[in-house]
C-alpha cells in the first residue's frame, strides 16, 4: 500500500466521522476498490474533457465519405434510415443527402482523414485517436448531454468528474479536483447555442464536495473567493485566527469532529484565496506559448484561454478539467457557422496537446473531444452545395482522444457509406466512460455508490467495455 492509498483511507474515515452521508456500506465497498485501483497501474492521472455542446457534424469534420459527392439531394435510402427516430423538426420531411462542402486531407504520417477546417489538429494527427463509431440513444440535446456527462438521461446522477473526485481524491489539496470552464462566446454566433445545466458537472447522489467547481469568466473565478472590499488578507487572517480559536474551544467542549473539519476548511479557503489567483494569472506565460493558442487567448472566457487554463490546472494537479464550448447545433447555415466554431477550437486544442507534450504531461493526461451526438447526412433548411443545415443524429458520431495512454495516429470504428449507422467497432458512451476510468486505474464495475437501492455506477446497468483496441 502506498501513501496515496493511506491518504485516501484517512480521507474516507474522516468523511465518515464527519457524517457526510457516506454510509458504512459505501465505505466498505469503496476501500477494496481503491486498493484495486491503486494496485493497477494507471495510465493517466488527469483528464481534460473538451465537450462540444450542441453536437458537431461528423460528416463535415471527421467521417470522410467522398462517394457522397454524387448523391446531392438524393433521398437517403430507407434501408439506411431503417425506421430511425427523428426529431420534431424533421419528422415527416424528405431526407435528402447533402455531402459536405469541405475538403478532407490525409494528415500526418498516419494519414488519417480530417477536414480542411481543422488545419492545426491535422498537424497533431499522429497523436490523435479518432473514434468514428460513437453512438447514443438520446436524440435531443438535454437528455443526450445529461447522458454523456452523467451516464443517465435523467437528472440526479453523478457526473464523470465527480466520480473521479470521489474515487481517487485530490492531488493538490489547495485546489478543487474537478473544475469546469465554459466558453463565454462563440465565433459561430449565438443562433445555434444550446443551454447547459449545473447537473452536467453535479455530484448527483455523491457527496457534494465532489461536484465540479465552475470557474467564472468575470469576477471571482471561484464564487465568493475574494474578500469583500475593505478586507485584505491581513484582516482576514486575524478574523480566521479569532474564529479558529473559538471553534477550537468549542471542539474541545463539545467533542464533535465536524468542528475540526470546519476549522480545516476555513484554512483551505484561506489558502485558495492565494492559490486560485496564482492559477488564473497568465502573466508568467511566455509569448510563444500565448501565441501558440492563437489570438483569442487574449480574451477572457475564450475557448483558447480556457485551454491554456486547463494546462495550468493539470500542472498544478487538478484531476479533471471539463471545458464546455457551445454553438454546434447547426440546423441551418452550417458551413458558415462551422467555420466559426472550428476557428474557436482547432488551434487551441492543437496547442493544448503540443503544450502538454512539451512539458511531459501528455502521457499523464487523457484529452477527450466530443459532442453529445452527431448530425444527419441529410440536409435541413436550405439545401445548396455551400449552404445547408443538419439535424440531430445519435446513431453515429465522431470525436477524438489523445494522450493518457491512448494510441495516436489511428481511427477507430467505421460507419456505412452515408455516415448513418455504425458498421464496425461501435463505441457506446458508456464504453468511453469505462475506458476513461480504466486509464485512471479504476475498474468501472467496482467504482460504485449505493443510492436508491442500487449500486450506482457511471456506466449504468447495461454492459460497458473498455475499448482495449485503442490503448497504447
Amino acid at each position, binding site marked *: 500500500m502506498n501513501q496515496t492509498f493511506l491518504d485516501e483511507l484517512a480521507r474516507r474515515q474522516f468523511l465518515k466521522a464527519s457524517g*457526510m452521508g457516506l454510509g458504512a456500506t459505501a465505505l466498505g465497498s469503496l476501500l477494496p476498490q481503491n486498493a484495486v485501483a491503486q494496485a493497477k497501474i494507471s495510465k493517466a492521472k488527469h483528464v481534460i474533457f473538451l465537450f462540444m455542446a450542441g453536437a458537431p457534424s461528423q460528416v463535415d469534420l471527421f467521417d470522410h465519405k467522398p462517394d457522397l459527392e454524387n448523391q446531392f439531394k438524393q433521398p437517403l435510402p430507407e434501408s439506411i434510415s431503417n425506421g430511425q427516430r427523428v426529431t420534431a423538426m424533421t419528422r415527416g420531411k424528405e431526407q435528402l443527402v447533402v455531402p459536405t462542402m469541405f475538403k478532407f486531407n490525409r494528415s500526418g504520417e498516419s494519414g488519417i482523414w480530417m477536414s480542411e477546417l481543422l488545419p492545426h489538429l491535422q498537424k497533431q494527427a499522429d497523436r490523435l485517436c479518432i473514434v468514428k463509431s460513437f453512438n447514443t440513444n438520446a436524440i435531443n440535446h438535454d437528455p443526450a448531454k445529461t447522458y454523456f456527462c452523467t451516464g443517465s438521461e435523467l437528472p440526479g446522477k453523478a457526473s464523470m468528474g465527480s466520480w473521479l473526485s470521489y474515487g481517487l481524491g485530490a492531488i493538490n489539496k489547495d485546489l478543487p479536483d474537478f473544475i469546469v470552464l465554459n466558453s463565454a462566446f462563440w465565433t459561430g454566433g449565438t443562433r445555434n447555442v444550446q443551454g447547459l445545466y449545473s447537473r452536467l458537472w453535479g455530484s448527483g447522489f455523491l457527496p457534494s464536495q465532489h461536484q465540479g467547481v465552475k470557474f*467564472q469568466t468575470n469576477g471571482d473565478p471561484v464564487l465568493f473567493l475574494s*474578500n469583500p472590499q475593505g478586507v485584505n488578507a491581513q*484582516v482576514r487572517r486575524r*478574523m480566521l485566527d479569532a474564529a479558529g480559536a473559538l471553534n477550537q474551544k468549542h471542539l474541545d467542549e463539545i467533542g464533535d469532529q*465536524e468542528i475540526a473539519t470546519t476549522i480545516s476548511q476555513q484554512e483551505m479557503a484561506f489558502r485558495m484565496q492565494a492559490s486560485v489567483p496564482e492559477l488564473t494569472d497568465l502573466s508568467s506565460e511566455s509569448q510563444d506559448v500565448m501565441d501558440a493558442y492563437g489570438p483569442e487567448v487574449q480574451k477572457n472566457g475564450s475557448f483558447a484561454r480556457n485551454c491554456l487554463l486547463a494546462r495550468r490546472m493539470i500542472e498544478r494537479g487538478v484531476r479533471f478539467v471539463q471545458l464546455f464550448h457551445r454553438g454546434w447545433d447547426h440546423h441551418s447555415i452550417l458551413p458558415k457557422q462551422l467555420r466559426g466554431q472550428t476557428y474557436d477550437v482547432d488551434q487551441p486544442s492543437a496547442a493544448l496537446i503540443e503544450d502538454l507534450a512539451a512539458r511531459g504531461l501528455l502521457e499523464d493526461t487523457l484529452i477527450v473531444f466530443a459532442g453529445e451526438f452527431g448530425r444527419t447526412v441529410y440536409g435541413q433548411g436550405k439545401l445548396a452545395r455551400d449552404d445547408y443545415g443538419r439535424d440531430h443524429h445519435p446513431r453515429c458520431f465522431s470525436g477524438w482522444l489523445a494522450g493518457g495512454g491512448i494510441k495516436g495516429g489511428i481511427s477507430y470504428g467505421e460507419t456505412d457509406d452515408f455516415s448513418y449507422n455504425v458498421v464496425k467497432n461501435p463505441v457506446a458512451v458508456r464504453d468511453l466512460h469505462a475506458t476513461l476510468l480504466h486509464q485512471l486505474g479504476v475498474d468501472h464495475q467496482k467504482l460504485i455508490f449505493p443510492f*436508491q437501492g442500487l449500486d450506482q455506477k457511471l456506466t449504468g446497468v447495461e454492459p460497458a467495455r473498455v475499448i482495449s483496441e485503442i490503448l497504447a
Partner: protein
Amino acid sequence: MLLLAVSSSWMPFAEGGEGKVSFNRDIRPILSDRCFHCHGPDEEDRKADLRLDVLDSDGSTLAALSPGNVAESELIRRISSKEIDVVMPPPEAHKKAFSESEIEVFENWIEQGAPYEKFWAFTPVVRPAIPDVENPEWCSNAIDYFVLRKLEENQVAPQEVADRRTLLRRLSLDLTGLPPTREEIGDFLEDESDSAYEDAVDRLLNKPQFGEHQARYWLDLVRFADTNGIHHDHYRDLSPYRQWVIQAFNEGLPYDDFVRFQIAGDLFPDATDDQLIASGFNRLHMIIDRGTMLPEESLARNVIDRVTAVGTAFMGLTVGCAVCHDHKYDPITSKDFYQLYAFFNNLDASAETGGRSGNDFKRGLQPPYIELPSAEQEKFRLEISERRAELNRQIESIKNTLKTLDAAEAGTNEDQARETQLAREEGEAELKQLEDQSKQLRAENDALDLLIPAAMVMRERQEKRPAYLMIRGAYDNLGAQVQRGTPAFLPSLKRVSDGPADRMDLATWLVAPEQPLTARVAVNRFWQQLFGVGIVRTSEDLGAQGEWPSHPDLLDYLASGFIDSGWNVRSLFKQMVMSKAYRQRSDAGPEAFKRDPDNRLIARGSRYRLDAEVIRDQFLYASGLMNAEIGGKSVKPPQPLGLWKSVALPSSYPNQFVADEGDKVYRRSVYTFWKRGMPPPQMTILNAPTREDCTARRERTNTPLQALLLMNETQCMEAARQLAIKSLEVEKEKRIAFLYETITGRVPDESEMNQLVSATEYFESFYRSNPDLAIQLNQNVANVSHESHEVAAWTMLVNTLFNLDITKTRS
C-alpha cells in the same frame, strides 16, 4: 450481542433478545444486497429459477436451505465456498463476497429454524406495546421508553437535558427555521413555571414561520422550482402552490387531506380554489418547450416523472426503477408501474409548453390554470371590460353614422356634400380616438393580467387516454394495454367513485388506515427534520434496499398514533419535541461522537449543520434586515454576475439574472427564485438540491467553498454591517455579549470574551490606520453617524461570529 454488532455493520447496535437473529433486520438486507439482483423479484434476470425474496413454493421456508440444519443448507454451502464455480455471489456479478461474520449470522439463523418475516414496511402498521425500561423516571412520554430501552440494551446512558439557551435555540430553529431573539431568550430564562418549555413549544408551533419552514422541506421533496428545467428552461410560476403548502401547515390541514388534495384536488365535487391549487402537485415536473422532442416522448417523460414523485413523496419507494424492468429488490413489477402511470397520463394539456407569444408565456403559465385575482384586481378587470363594452358601442354607433353618410352622399348639392364631408371627417377623427382608447384599454388589460396570480392545476381529459406497458421504458415500444391499478403486494384499491378508477381512488387508497407506507414515510421524514437522521436513514426509500430502522417499534408507534390523531402534523411535532430524547444535550464528548457519529442510538441531542436557507435567514433575521412578508411570487436576491448567462440558451426567458430591488431581496429563502439549470449558488454550495428531481433528504458536507461563501458573500456582509451598526447603540462593554447572544443564543465566557476583545481591538486599530479600507468596507451604508473605523471593526467582529461553527450548527 457481539455477533449482531459484527453482522449488521450499518446498524452497529444491539437489538432486543441476545443472539436472536431477525430475518428482516439481519438477513434480508444482505440477501437484498448480494442475491436479489438474480434471485429476487425481477423475473427477467432471475437465475436458476431460484427466488430468495419470498418463501418457496410450499410456503414453509426460504428456498435452498434446511431449517435447523446448517450442513444440509445449500445456501450456506454456496456463500461459504472457496470454489469459483460454486461460490455465491459469483465473481462476475461484482458483488461483495459474504464475510465470515455474515456467514455466521446466516448459520445461526438457520440453526434457530430460519424464521421468515414479511418485509416490515409492507405489513400493516400495528401499534406496538410501550416497552419496559429499567429507569422509567427518565421518560417523559412514550417516545422515551422506546429510545431508552435501546440505550439500556446497549448499556449507554442518555445525556441530561440541555440548558435552556440551547433548548430554545434548537426548538426555534427546528420549528420555525429562525433563531430566538434575545428578548425571547430572556423571557424563557425567567419563566419559572412548570410549563415553560411546553408553552415555548406551543408558541413556536403557532407562528406563521412554522408553515414557511415546514414548506421548505416539502418543496425539496416535490422538486418545486421557478423554471421548466429542460431545454430552454423557461420561467414558470407555481407560487400559489408554495403558498398553499405554507398555509396547509399553518392551518393544520390533516396530512391525509394534504395528500388527497395534491393527488386529486381537482376531482373533489365543487373543488375549492385550495384543492385545485394543491392539485398543482401534478404540474411540478420538468417539462420541455415545443419543437425539439416528439410530443409522445415528452408525454411519457412527464407522466413517468409524476408517478416517480408520488412514489418518493408519499410511498417512500423507488417505483421509477420499474420503468424499464421489474424492480430488482422490491416486488414492484413493470406492470405495477404502468398501472400507476395510467392514473396520471390523462392531463388535459399539451405535453410541452406553448409558444413564446402571449401573456401565458410571460406569466409562466401553461393551461390549465385558475386565476386568483384580488378583490381590487377583480374590480379593475370589471371596470376595464365595462369601459371596453361602452367603447365598442360608441365605435359601432359612429361606424353606422359613417355608413349613413355614405348612403346620403348620392344626389346632393355642393353645400350638402361639404357638410357631409365635414361630418365624415369629424366622425373619422372621433373613431380613431375611440379606437386608440380601445387599444390602450386592451394594453391595460394585458398589463393587469400579468399581475393577477394564477395557479396551474390538474384536469382530466374527457376521453381517457389508454396506457400501455413500455418495453424497456421506451415510449415508442409499447406492450400490452394496462388498466389503472395499484401494486399487488400492497392493499387492494377500493373504489370510492363510480366509473373507471381515478386519482381520487388512488389518493384515498394512499391514506387508508391499512396502507402500510404513507404514515411511516411521513413520520420518518418529520423525525428526520428534528433529529437530523430518520429512524429509517434512507427516508426516500423504505423498500428492501432501504436501511433497517434504528427503532422499528418507535416508528410504528408514531405512525399509528399519527393516523389515530387524524393525521395531525402539529401534535406529532409536539409529541416529538416534548420527548426527553429530543431535549438531551448534544455536547457529549469526543468518544460519543466517535462511537455513533450520526447519533443513531439517540444517546444525545443531535448536532448538525443548518440548511442553506436557515443559515441565510438567520443572518437576515439577527441583523434586522429580514422582510417577513409571507407568500407571493419568487424573489431574486443578488448573486454573482453572469451565472445564468454562462449556461442559459440565449433565447431562454429570462436568460440573464436581474436582482430584485428594495426589501424584496431580504425575504426568507423559501421565496428565492429557483432556476433549475443554475440554482442560486448561496443555496447549492450548502447542499440545497437543484430541484430537478425529488429529494427526501439533503446531505451535509463541509467544504472550503462553504467557508468562502460565509466569509465573503454580499448579503452575509450586508447583514454583518447592519448588525454592527445596530450594536453601536449598545454601550461598548456590553456590545460583544450583545452580539454573541444575538447570533449564537449564548453568552460568552471569559476566554471567549478575551479572544473577541482582542480581535476587536485589532480590527479597530487596523481600520483607524487604514481609513480608506474602512470606507470601502462600509460601502452601502448611508448617513452613518458613527466613525467609519468603528463600523468597519464591528462588522468584522460580526463576520467572525457568523463564521463560528456553532452559528451554522443546530445543537
